[in-house]
């Protein structure tokens, strides 16, 4: 099997941020090609199992399928499968049916589709009411609107009432791009994660989104499913297991653990590849369920590698990074770095430009890994010295040029070099 990651990096058609460009180069006679072609040609008409080519070989550790698809495509397919399996599955939308990929569902199951108009508070309330009659209600909008402006309804009508409602936050993350900061949901994981009873799922690619949607339909109770618009490479395959609350190790490694979620898992894989060249073996964990967090996987990673880097297309406050930090700070503190949007709003731009500017690229992950490793080297639990930043770290910090970043260093380090960086 060719090194798919190298292909990914060299092939222009999979450069992030060019959604129009499809990948015609994929040959249909290769396993990936077959899989890709089948995925593109109307998934959701038959159960998943039938679509798997019987002799297909899939590398267990982190293959990136060169086929780029958006999370929302996976949702559109998943809800069709869920609807086939369970006649009580209904879908609701707030005037964003096509954007949320519910158009096929609407066409196929008109009596099970409810349009609520541009009214996200009512969207969640109506979904909860439908759940009272035994429905499994998927309520979809853009994440900035729901759960953004329907948080109280999600809290009381859904979580406190334990209603079987799946809140689907579409177009989440900074990669929604040109619409700008108002439409870039970067806080949704935080506001959903803090709610009792809520399960929070952030799938890494379209295939995983499809599996997550089917799993959410089978799961009784509130679920938040984070979807996205931009096309990203596949990082999981049909064979990759998916179980709510169970992290997937995409690549084994013992020097550092990169715990990522959502679209940025693909960047984490590219980063691991770069690190491999430096003889740093990075474990990659796809943490698709943020809540309940797979604490076992986090602690194993902390124990085995002694350094953790989290990666998410979300604020570094309140999301995956915070969830992981809570676990390791409680049980097994090790040096940790968080890659994410650093307490700031986004702006208009292509998703590629935004990923670059806001420090969400493989190169940023590599930098974070180096810092974590340096701290690990000087990490000595039980001694006061751990609070001081070693000279080697200070030296590297001066070199780092990531716009408006690394404010967390400020406390541990004198002000002067920080100013120089800007």
């Amino acid at each position: 099997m060719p090194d798919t990651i190298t292909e990914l990096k060299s092939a222009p058609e999979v450069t992030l941020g060019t959604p129009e460009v499809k990948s015609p180069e994929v040959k249909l006679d290769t396993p990936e090609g077959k899989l890709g072609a089948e995925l593109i040609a109307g998934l959701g008409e038959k159960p998943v199992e039938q679509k798997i080519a019987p002799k297909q070989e899939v590398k267990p550790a982190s293959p990136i399928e060169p086929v780029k698809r958006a999370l929302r495509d996976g949702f559109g397919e998943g809800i069709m499968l869920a609807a086939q399996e369970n006649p009580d599955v209904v879908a609701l939308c707030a005037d964003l049916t096509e954007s949320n990929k519910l158009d096929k569902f609407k066409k196929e199951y008109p009596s099970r589709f409810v349009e609520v108009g541009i009214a996200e508070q009512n969207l969640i309330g109506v979904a909860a009411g439908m759940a009272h009659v035994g429905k499994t209600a998927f309520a979809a909008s853009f994440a900035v609107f729901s759960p953004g402006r329907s948080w109280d309804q999600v809290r009381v009508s859904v979580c406190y009432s334990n209603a079987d409602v799946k809140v689907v936050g579409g177009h989440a993350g900074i990669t929604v791009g040109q619409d700008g900061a108002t439409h870039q949901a970067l806080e949704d994981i935080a506001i959903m994660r803090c709610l009792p009873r809520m399960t929070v799922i952030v799938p890494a690619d379209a295939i995983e989104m499809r599996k997550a949607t089917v799993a959410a339909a089978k799961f009784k109770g509130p679920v938040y499913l984070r979807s996205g618009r931009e096309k990203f490479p596949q990082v999981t395959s049909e064979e990759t297991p998916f179980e709510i609350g169970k992290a997937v190790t995409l690549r084994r490694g013992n020097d550092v653990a990169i715990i990522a979620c959502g679209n940025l898992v693909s960047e984490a894989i590219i980063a691991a590849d770069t690190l491999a060249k430096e003889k740093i073996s990075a474990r990659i964990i796809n943490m698709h369920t943020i809540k309940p967090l797979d604490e076992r996987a986090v602690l194993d990673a902390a124990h085995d590698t002694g350094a953790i880097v989290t990666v998410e297309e979300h604020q570094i406050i309140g999301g995956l990074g915070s969830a992981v930090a809570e676990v390791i700070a409680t049980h097994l503190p090790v040096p940790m770095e968080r890659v994410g949007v650093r307490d700031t709003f986004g702006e208009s731009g292509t998703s590629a430009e935004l990923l670059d500017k806001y420090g969400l690229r493989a190169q940023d992950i590599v930098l974070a890994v180096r810092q974590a490793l340096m701290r690990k080297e000087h990490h000595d639990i039980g001694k006061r010295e751990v609070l001081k930043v070693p000279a080697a770290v200070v030296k590297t910090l001066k070199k780092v040029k990531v716009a408006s970043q690394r404010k967390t260093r400020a406390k541990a380090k004198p002000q002067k070099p920080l100013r120089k960086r800007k």
Partner: protein
Amino acid sequence: MKDKELELLANSARQELVKTLVNAQSGHTAGPLGMADIFTVLYYDCARVDSNNPSWPDRDYIYLSNGHICPIWYVTLAMRGFFPVDELQHLRKINSLLQGHPHNETIPGVENSGGPLGQGISQAAGCAIALKADGKPNRVYALLGDGEMDEGQVWEALMFAAQHKLDNLTIIIDRNNIQIDGPTHSIMNLEPLGDKLRAFGWNVIGIDGHDIGEIKKALGKAGATRGKPTAILAQTVPGKGCSEFENNYEWHGKTPSKEQGDKALAELQEIRTRIEKRWF
């Protein structure tokens, strides 16, 4: 059920309510007293409910959108046999079944958790559309406060119900003209409320919310209306039956002391005697 019987039941509910509130020393007084007649007619005469089987699939669904008036809901459910009347003394107490605002999971007969205003009507609309899609005959009722009509979500739900022609949905608006900060017309004017509801595509019925006959008639009309949801605009007197609490917005969110409660109970007993003496 005869009007006189229902009036006596409503009077019993009010007396039970005053005792409950005096005991709880926390909660709302005016709204629950004002809605006693409507709750009584709904639970004893109109809605199909089974206290032995609160989750009976053929039941009518009753939602309380303005959750803070739940003491009257609890009293009615207890009297109707959903749970022992003794439970009422634990209202708002630690480890109690009866939370300060209703919780669907702990209290038999309570369909929705509520408190944050505007949420109940949306849930009722969702319930109604799901029942309709399944071709079921169950009816859905939602009780709202007039102050609650300030919430945008209420109007989202009103538009939704009319758009989807949810004629199995009936809302009853407790038009008692008060909210926490004062009279509704001085805080946020709602008038002309009936016209607004009609303009939103609803069938509107205005009634005296203390006239048992009118309440019964309006609920009957609502059930017979096809093609649009019905809103019953019930003019009520906050604190009804106890002169000290009547029409005084200060009694929205506080409870009577033992002495005030005893005075109220004496007044309610007087009213009861009058009803009993009546020949019709």
